[in-house]
């Protein structure tokens, strides 16, 4: 039972990492708290659902959803956020408005029913692990989460784009002054972050299902991850995801009525001692 729960926690943490890493990238570089991130997750899930059902291909669903959500993110960034560039609070509240609108569009199209993104055949069903049967798909999510962590690490630490992003997280003004087109860098980062939300939507939509309030649930978990891990830190997002994933999963079993408390209690305590999170740097 405990091993089962631990695997559930780990796979949930992997999903959280995918979603929250996008959130923390945008937050870290652009100082924008994208409250539409949850809505983009859900949108990605729905797009993946439609593509998956029509074509029967999980790969196409993943690619299509990520691309579609990145496009929406690009539109939000270029079309709306640039009007409120100088004011962090207005940016946050604007993304909140975007979230509300996106959710309502989802509701118009998909209604209040629960959907599940179809998974490829070879990932269906359980696998036997030392006398315990565990869903193959959740193991796949766990592996995918680790792979995405590795890919993001390589992107951030081994490519020019990544070093620019890291430099921007530390001091965006200086990067701009050195002749880098920071506006374009911002748009790319925003799109990448949104694509991760869309990717998470497809991954999560296949085992957590898609329903109208799924977005605020994943958003709250992502917020907790980023608050714990600190702004713009990939490692922070990973550790935060693991912490939140385990607390949420075990909390729901042990104290079903106060599951939220179990996550936010430690978060609040951590915040009291480290307001910027475990790996956060002062702005």
């Amino acid at each position, binding site marked *: 039972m405990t091993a089962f729960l631990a695997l559930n926690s780990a796979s949930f943490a992997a999903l959280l990492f995918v979603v929250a890493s996008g959130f923390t990238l945008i937050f870290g570089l652009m100082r924008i*708290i994208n409250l539409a991130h949850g809505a983009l997750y859900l949108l990605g899930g729905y797009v993946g659902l439609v593509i998956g059902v029509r074509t029967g291909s999980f790969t196409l669903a993943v690619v299509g959803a990520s691309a579609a959500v990145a496009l929406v993110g690009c539109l939000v960034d270029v079309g709306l956020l640039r009007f*409120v560039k100088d004011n962090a*609070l*207005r940016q946050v509240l604007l993304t909140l*408005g975007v979230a*509300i609108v996106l959710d309502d569009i989802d509701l118009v199209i998909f209604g209040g029913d629960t959907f599940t993104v179809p998974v490829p055949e070879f990932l269906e069903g359980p696998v036997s692990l030392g006398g315990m049967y565990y869903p193959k798909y959740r193991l796949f999510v766990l592996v995918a989460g680790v792979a995405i962590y590795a890919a993001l690490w390589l992107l951030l630490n081994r490519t020019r784009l990544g070093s620019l992003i890291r430099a921007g997280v530390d001091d965006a003004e200086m990067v701009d002054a050195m002749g880098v087109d920071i506006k374009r860098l911002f748009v790319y980062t925003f799109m990448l972050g949104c694509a991760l939300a869309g990717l998470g939507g497809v991954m999560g939509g296949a085992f957590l299902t898609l329903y109208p309030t799924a977005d605020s649930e994943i958003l*709250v978990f992502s917020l907790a991850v980023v608050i714990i891990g600190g702004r713009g830190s990939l490692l922070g997002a990973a550790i935060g995801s693991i912490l939140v994933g385990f607390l949420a999963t075990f909390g729901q079993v042990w104290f079903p*009525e106060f599951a939220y408390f179990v996550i936010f209690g430690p978060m609040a305590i951590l915040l*009291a001692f480290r307001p910027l999170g475990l790996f956060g740097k002062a702005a």
Partner: protein
Amino acid sequence: MGTRLNWLVTIAVLAGLAAVPFFVGTYKTTLASQMLIFAILAMSIDVLAGFAGRTTLCHGAIFGVSTYVVLYLTSIDASSPWLAAVLGILAATLVAAIFAILAIRTAGVYFLLLTLALGMIIWGICLRWTSVTGGENGIRSTIRPDWLLDSANFYYFTLAIFVVLAFAMWRFVNSPFGLSLQGIRESETRMRALGYNVSLHLFIGFTISGFFAGAAGALYAFFNGFVSPTTVALGQSVAALLMAIVGGVGTLFGGLVGSIMVTAVQDIVSVYTDRWSMLLGLMFIGAMVFAPEGILGKIRTMLASRAAQARPAGTPPNQQRR
């Protein structure tokens, strides 16, 4: 703006508000009561957002805590709704104090983020703690005494409370303590250097603002007689914040203007479409892009620029009357 003009506007608005039940039917009177209740909530947010510079997204939840407590207590023992109201406001104030301890350490977007998360905890508890909160079904309880059943009577009751609370908030933000909050909004380090205990001031400001939100929540319990997780959900905080923003953050009475406008739009639109929430989102985006200073804020800027001796830039505005 001269003091006399302020008094004239205040009296005219009060007379206008008092005359509402004479000119409109039962339904519109009820709607007007709702506007006043949410005006209190929006103004309580403005106390914090406009004067202490801390925009919150948990006041809807604090408001809802009070509503939940009042309706829960009266559903057990219906004999004393007033005691329930007092306890509801106390509970909301207590929750606000706890939130304040955690949240005042942060500022700006971090504050927004943290208050959002704190508000979500309340929502999560109300949704899951079914044995007390009734989960999705919520709590229904008839608590209005007989003399409040009439919509006009209830409106005057609400108006009386609104006037008292609005006056109290206005006194609060213009008191020396309120000015210290404005000082913190302008520059925390400077206030600290001047010897103010910034954390303590923010804590008190947050708690008092939560008290007002709780008072609005208790009133809402009398108004609605029903509460469900929607009342404490993020949407509630967002809608109330939108009211404060539409009216004008930092104007206090903008909360009333915003509440009247947003509630009216909601009422008119609901006749034609179910897509109220999409419209709320679009209004939010529009307000952020086009009119971040709000209606009263705009009027104030216009009046200020018309005045021959404009204040030097950066001076905190001190006259928050209509």
